């Protein structure tokens, strides 16, 4: 046996919004790109986002994620400079810059001149008694079940977390015909955009702030949940317990960036709670502390898909530029993308991201 290593110009790991835009931007600049995604279908989380996006036109506002995924995937698949490999899992980033890939039960190795890591994020969970009962899901999993496969997880749900994902998934579950007993949010304020929260309130769903799930009830599956109010230290307030009859509990309590490959590459990571956990230090072109290794999207810090697309494009643009492509058009395009990204993060909504980024940016 011998191991064959193929050399490629730019490898993009992850075919979600960040990875798709990174691949397209780099390929449009003239570089050869290999895009690797472990799913059978490109698009990442976009393929289950049936709601319309916010923001300005250049941020694809009022488009639905699922349509953005289809459009970007179409462009990627037909681009002569992009080799898109689905069902391809990158399982290791070795010290000599070689990536190990598994596809269809076989492994192979590639050595890219530049790597863009767009691996996304994983759902966080909560510790509470009986949290392993069947019927307890992450909000992302529920969105996949309902919006991709058309399967309802149950009849009546408690949603834990009133951030954008929790509230949007709640609305989608209502649309799909589920009852929603309540949304609980540990913070004293609703995190979601007001327009989403107002929609579920109008539909009669109570949102309890400063509340959390105390425990799940049931023997073989979820039969109910106990919620209670919490004080500023997160301790339950006596006498505030409520019993809810539900068969499904949906956890939407944040995401943590998937940085394992970046850690293996030797990128310096820093813990930034505003960005979801450990994220790599990076400069404005999304290059990490390891030259030639870039990060984009939720792996760089949990943010919205529109920001992930901009970051992906910036990383792809710089990776191609650093290989000698698009030397004349680079600066104008970079400034345009950076300006779009900055406007997306402006105002009070972007406050948390901006404060997080101030700790993750270098150079």
């Amino acid at each position, binding site marked *: 046996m011998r191991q064959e290593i193929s050399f490629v110009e730019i490898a993009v790991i992850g075919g979600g919004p960040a990875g798709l835009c990174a691949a397209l931007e780099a390929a449009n600049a003239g570089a050869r790109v290999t895009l690797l995604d472990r799913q059978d279908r490109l698009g990442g989380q976009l393929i289950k986002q049936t709601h319309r996006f916010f923001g300005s036109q250049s941020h694809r506002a009022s488009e639905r994620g699922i349509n953005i995924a289809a459009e970007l995937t179409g462009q990627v698949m037909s681009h002569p400079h992009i080799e898109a490999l689905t069902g391809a899992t990158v399982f*290791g980033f*070795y010290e000599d810059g070689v990536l190990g890939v598994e596809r269809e039960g076989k*492994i192979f190795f590639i050595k890219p001149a530049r790597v863009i890591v767009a691996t996304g994020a994983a759902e966080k969970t909560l*510790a509470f008694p*009986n949290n392993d009962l069947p019927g307890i899901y992450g909000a992302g999993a529920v969105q996949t079940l309902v919006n991709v496969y058309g399967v309802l997880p149950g009849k009546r749900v408690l949603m834990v977390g009133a951030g954008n994902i929790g509230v949007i998934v709640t609305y989608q579950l209502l649309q799909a015909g589920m009852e929603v007993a309540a949304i609980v949010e540990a913070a004293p304020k609703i995190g979601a955009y007001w327009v989403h929260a107002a929609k579920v309130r109008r539909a009669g769903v109570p949102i309890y702030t400063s509340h959390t799930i105390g425990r799940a009830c049931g023997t073989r599956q979820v039969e109910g949940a106990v919620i209670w109010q919490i004080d500023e230290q997160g301790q339950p307030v006596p006498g505030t317990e409520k019993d809810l009859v539900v068969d499904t509990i949906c956890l939407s309590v944040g995401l943590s960036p*998937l940085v*394992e490959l970046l850690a293996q590459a030797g990128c310096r990571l820093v813990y930034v709670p505003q960005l979801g956990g450990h994220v790599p230090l990076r400069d404005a072109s999304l290059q990490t502390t390891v030259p030639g290794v870039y990060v984009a999207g939720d792996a760089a810090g949990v943010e919205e898909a529109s920001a992930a697309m901009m970051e992906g494009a910036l990383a792809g643009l710089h990776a191609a530029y650093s290989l000698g492509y698009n030397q004349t058009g680079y600066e104008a395009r970079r400034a345009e993308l950076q300006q779009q990204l900055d406007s997306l993060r402006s105002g009070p909504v972007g406050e948390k991201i901006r404060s997080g980024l101030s700790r993750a940016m270098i150079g």
Partner: protein
Amino acid sequence: MEDKTIICRCEDVTLEEIRKAIAEGARTLDEIKRLKRCGMGPCQGRTCRPLIAGEIARMTGQNPAELALPTFRPPVVPLKLGTLARGGVPDEQA
């Protein structure tokens, strides 16, 4: 009611076991991983790691920012042994 709060779903490790390990002196994610196996299952710690880090921080008064991440070795996802054993290209085809 029995408090069976699961922290690591892959290896079925409870909150009580994690707290006991910390009370007995474990201070890092890697130590708890070696003692309890959490982080060694199919999800490779993606689910339990933030919860365990929070528990260490709470019980020891450490800043979560200063807790070292565990070492992430390849493969970062489960691979079948057959896939690994098959390796690269058989010599006769190469």
